[in-house]
């Protein structure tokens, strides 16, 4: 971990970055923001860890807890909402057996998250499955894709 963090630090110094760009790099490398990483960088730069956590909790791109290996992002923009994204999320939670107020399956296989709008309203409702955008999605189509991922693991 230290090696990756050192690289992030070097990149920050070279490109006159800031707290947000550091957090973006950490998130990209680890998939979430580990407490250890923040404390390590905070010591090296002599910037209080609270400022990192302040940003990490402010922006929705950052996560403080480990996430599933596969991420299903359901768009909750207006167009998607009107075309039934809320029901899609409800059913997805039941199908993947994710408890209330949680977003990740117990075996860390799947995380279901919501995004406000990815701007593909013309093909609503939209979901992103591991960075791949699927338009005009239905629960059946989505479950087929999820089964494919499950089979592949």
């Amino acid at each position: 971990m230290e090696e990756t963090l050192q690289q992030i630090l070097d990149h920050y110094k070279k490109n006159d970055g800031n707290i947000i760009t550091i957090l973006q790099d950490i998130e990209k490398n680890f998939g979430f923001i580990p407490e250890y990483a923040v404390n390590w960088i905070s010591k090296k730069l002599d910037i209080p860890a609270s400022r990192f956590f302040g940003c990490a909790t402010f922006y929705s791109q950052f996560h403080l807890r480990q996430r599933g290996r596969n991420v299903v992002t359901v768009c909750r923009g207006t167009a998607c909402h009107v075309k039934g994204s809320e029901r899609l999320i409800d059913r997805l939670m039941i199908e993947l057996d994710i408890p209330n107020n949680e977003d990740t399956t117990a075996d860390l296989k799947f995380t279901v998250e919501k995004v406000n709008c990815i701007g593909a309203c013309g093909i609503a409702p939209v979901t992103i499955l591991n960075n791949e955008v699927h338009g005009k999605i239905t629960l059946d189509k989505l479950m087929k894709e999820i089964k494919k991922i499950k089979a592949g693991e």
Partner: protein
Amino acid sequence: MNKNIVIKVCAGTGGVASGGEEVLSAFRHAISASGIEAEFQKGCAAHRVGCRGFCAQDVLVDVIINGEKTTYKHIKQDMVQRIFDEHILNGIPVEEWTVQEDYHAFHEQQTKVVLAHCGEIDPEDIGAYMEVGGYEASKKATCSMTPMEIVNTVKNSNLRGRGGAGFPTGLKWELGLRIKSDIKYVICNGDEGDPGAFMDRSVMEGDPHSVIEGMIICARATESGHGYIYVRSEYPLAVKRLQLAIDQCYQKGFLGADIFGSGFDFQLKIFQGAGAFVCGEATALMRSIEGKRGMPTPKLWRSAEKGLWDRPTVLNNVETFANIPRIIMKGADWYRNLGTERSGGTKVFSLSGKVRNTGLIEVPLGVPLKKIVYEIGGGIEGGKAFKALQTGGPSGGCIPADGLETEVDYESLAQAGSIMGSGGMVVLDETSCMVNTARFFLEFTQAESCGKCTPCRIGTKRMLEILERITSGNGKEEDIPLLEELGQYIRSASLCGLGMTAPNPVLSTLRYFRDEYEAHIRDKRCPAAVCRDLITYSVIEELCTGCGACKRACPADAVRGKRKSPHKIDTEACVKCGTCYDACKFRAISKK
């Protein structure tokens, strides 16, 4: 067979999601396998183009043979070979796959200024942009115009900020020019966060160079040496294409030191947002670039005086910048005459929701809303009844059917109780519940409130609680006046635009659809059958054939019954997910 063949494949986010990249490579493969590429050298080219607006029919492909264009819709990878064999090699278009009247009607009603290049040129190739006159305007501005001349041209064009507030762009630039400082910034606001709006994304993806060119001209006009494009992280394709475009500009000498040999320097960088709606607000956006929590600051002075790192800063929206090169080249009069007296030019809207043709449209300001919904949008999907047009996203409001004569303009939309906003237009039909829609928007603004000022932080929370109470059937008679009172307080006491406009969706639906609120509160009934707690699913026995489709589909095992005899829904076990409703082919499930 002396042909000039160009194949254009849509590769915006919508196009890529529908398989655009695969279609493009299939065409390239077909061309190279047939050997005609070698035969005609440059005569045959296949390339990607930005969003052309009609995302519902993606993947759209243009095949242009000797200038004659045929457009295909819903193209998949495996359809490419037939188009290639029949149309490209033998000159006979595959009629059954070509676009119909609706595609042409959708485009013919529009006036494309900002979107002129989207869907026409390859956004990843600076050469394609230069071929259609790109970077002429910035060259003209840097080499043969004084900053004051540029400012005056923009002022005369009557261009107003396309981010939503509609501040005259020329005035903003004039202020930026007048204030002297050794370091000044130009920022492009690409933090398009309104759910239901995607015009900035399409412009950044489909024509990134015009945004950069607009920024160069602005930098020249305000004598600024540094620029940032703030793009939200939810738009990875826009980030990629903008970065590519910036790199190409540095190579060509259009950015960096001494651009166009004029002695003028301009450095441009992308800053990726990290997912916060409030960062679309100018002061919050600047705090975010500084690496802080994106919270707005009181506007004691204009950004043009003290903005990013307390330096003079001019900040404009993506679409505003994309207009600039055209204004410089075609003149202020041309642009001003396109729009209304108070606001010049055109505006891009993203039309979505329950309308037949969803997508991106560009119309001159002053066009009646009716034309947008019925002529360009093609009317309501599935022959249902129109209920309202939601404009301006979570900061805007709903306009009912009798407001459709309203002409699109900053002032007239405000009068109708909505706002222009950044340009999202969502059509709602009889199956949309207005209380639920208001709750949806408030849930959004409440979650996105940065928490700095009390009216917004606590006020929106209280309003949301009341709306949740109403939609779950626990509303009280005094809730309506309470919502109105709270809304007024939040509107007048919040620090930034987010809070000031947050009550709009509630206040405007209360103004036009009060009866729906009353039905929820008094009769515990949702007229549109949307609010989950107020509806029950049941089987209409006369229509049920006992096929068992609903029983198999139900995730809660709430459907009971034997095969070939009418089924029943156990209301105790039912989770009201609506799966049975969708599964039934005989419309035997009722939702009330």
